[in-house]
């Protein structure tokens, strides 16, 4: 594509311009092809969940669904709070205190995504009589991750604590997640 004595050859210019136009066109077509794989508008629209917490007794959990994933909402008992606070300083993979996990102005409502941070199984422990693992919280049966009473990873392959989604108290008795 060398230029001649008269400067850039007309044909070279046409080649470069044509290929550039086709390249930009091709890349523009690629964007919608990639983007169509992302979550659809209706999936994104169903992105908040309200949970009624007035009927949850201390020590009891309810399971809800948040963005197609299981959500565990638990009212901790005073004993469980004491146990979790006592463990705040323990050696952990993903250190976090109970207060950080509950958030401000929230004494006892623990909200966790019921999705093991290892490979996405639903941990046991939120239902009546389920295996709570060695730390009295949640146990993932797939690959043996043990979470403590505050949903913090204590043993097994999971890399982080159970996720705490953003939530707020919509009223005294209802939390809005998302």
């Amino acid at each position, binding site marked *: 594509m060398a230029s001649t004595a008269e400067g850039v050859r007309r044909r070279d210019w046409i080649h470069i311009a044509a290929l550039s136009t086709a390249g930009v066109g091709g890349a523009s077509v690629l964007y919608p092809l990639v983007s169509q794989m992302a979550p659809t508008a209706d999936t994104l629209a169903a992105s908040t969940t309200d949970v009624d917490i007035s009927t949850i007794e201390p020590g009891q959990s309810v399971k809800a669904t948040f963005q197609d994933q299981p959500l565990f909402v638990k009212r901790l008992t005073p004993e469980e709070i004491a146990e979790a606070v006592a463990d705040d300083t323990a050696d952990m993979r993903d250190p976090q205190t109970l207060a950080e996990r509950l958030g401000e102005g929230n004494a006892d409502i623990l909200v966790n995504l019921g999705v093991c941070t290892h*490979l996405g*199984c639903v941990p046991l422990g939120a239902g009546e009589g389920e295996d709570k693992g060695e730390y009295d919280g949640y146990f993932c049966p*797939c690959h043996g991750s043990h979470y403590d009473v505050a949903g913090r990873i204590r043993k097994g392959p999971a890399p982080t604590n159970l996720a705490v989604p953003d939530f707020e108290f919509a009223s005294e008795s209802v939390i809005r997640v998302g």
Partner: protein
Amino acid sequence: MSFAWAKQYEPQTAFTKWMDEKLPLPRLVYSAVGAGYPVPRNLNYMWNFGVLAGFFLVLQIVTGVVLAMHYASNTEVAFGQVEHIMRNVNYGWMMRYAHANGASFFFIVIYLHIFRGFYYSSYKAPREMIWLLGVVIFLLMMATAFMGYVLPWGQMSFWGAKVITGLFGAIPVVGEPLQVWLVGGFAPGNSALNRFFSLHFLLPFVIAGVVILHIWALHIPGSSNPTGVEVKKESDTIPFHPYYTAKDGFGLGVILILFTFMLFFLPNMLGHPDNYVEANPLSTPALIVPEWYFYPFYAILRAFTGDLTIPFTDIILVPAKLLGVIAMFASILVWFFLPWLDKSPVRSGHYRPMFKKFFWFGLIPCMAALFYLGGAKPEEPFIVLSQIATAYYFLHFLVILPIVSQIEIPKPLPFSITEAVLGKDEGGAGAATAATDMSAGDAPDASPQPAE
């Protein structure tokens, strides 16, 4: 294609002559899998599995296209549609069981085909490209099989999809957005089921395309053989048809007896009962395992339970989850490097005493252990056993194979394939009778006669 003495296609009738001028398709077939393709005369039954794999690919495509006529990829109805196929569609039960067990048999013959390649070093020059394309086919098969298993939308379908797409979430920084993009939501749902169905339909045809490249690449140097000695002259070869079409036909008959026995008497033996329970995103089955053909790689994935840290500090370099994912992918990607890791000039394991010991007493028990451990519960002693087996697996390919191939003293090789078969070279005149004698017994490689 490959040798100067390969017979050329000669059209006999006016129609075939006309056809040969316009579109020489019969000529292509004749030279590729007919009398025009000379093949080493000493191939044993381990050389059947390429053709058998081709058969099962065709079986999967035929039964799959038929099943797609009755299936619907919507989470509301998918599980019910599969039962509809089983109960209402004429012979639907047979098509579905043939497709499910056909996948298992496809993997059985592919594993034997791959391990034939390991033992006889089929990956060595000049056949590296055949091997590389073969590994690509295996990866495509794994993707296809995984997505196919999601389609019935049972418990194992759903949780398998969740765990496998969760692997991508382990990639640093881009992992979680990538996972959401792949699934089209925050958990597998309608979007995931639809795209998996679309890709599950597409990929077998991509596999068929790569198979054509695989065979094309094979026909340039020609087939390898159990001695690993290259073809030198015409008496070393016999035409593919009728000799190997007959031998492959016999092997096909044997595998079809096994296949139909599974299909009609044990159709669910290789499946999981949990997959007859409809998918429930809020309840995980007690033990999530993939289909049996993924067990070795699943065992490697689960073997990593501790983070990689800087010694004596708490700084995590690579978290356990990512380590497992890397190791699982690496366990297959290492196959791409085999042609360059194994430096021995001798191909066949028959003439490599040290390599042979590590193959039979190292690699084979290691793979058997990984097959067992991938389906076992994630608890002791299985965890530590899978760690040992995983360590040996990588040690075998990355350390033992390169060292053994440098230090071992191979046994003397026969001068030619003909000599390996007949004991001494009879020259070109004896080739025709030798070729017919050959079909009487198939023990040429069992007692190779070294030169001198």
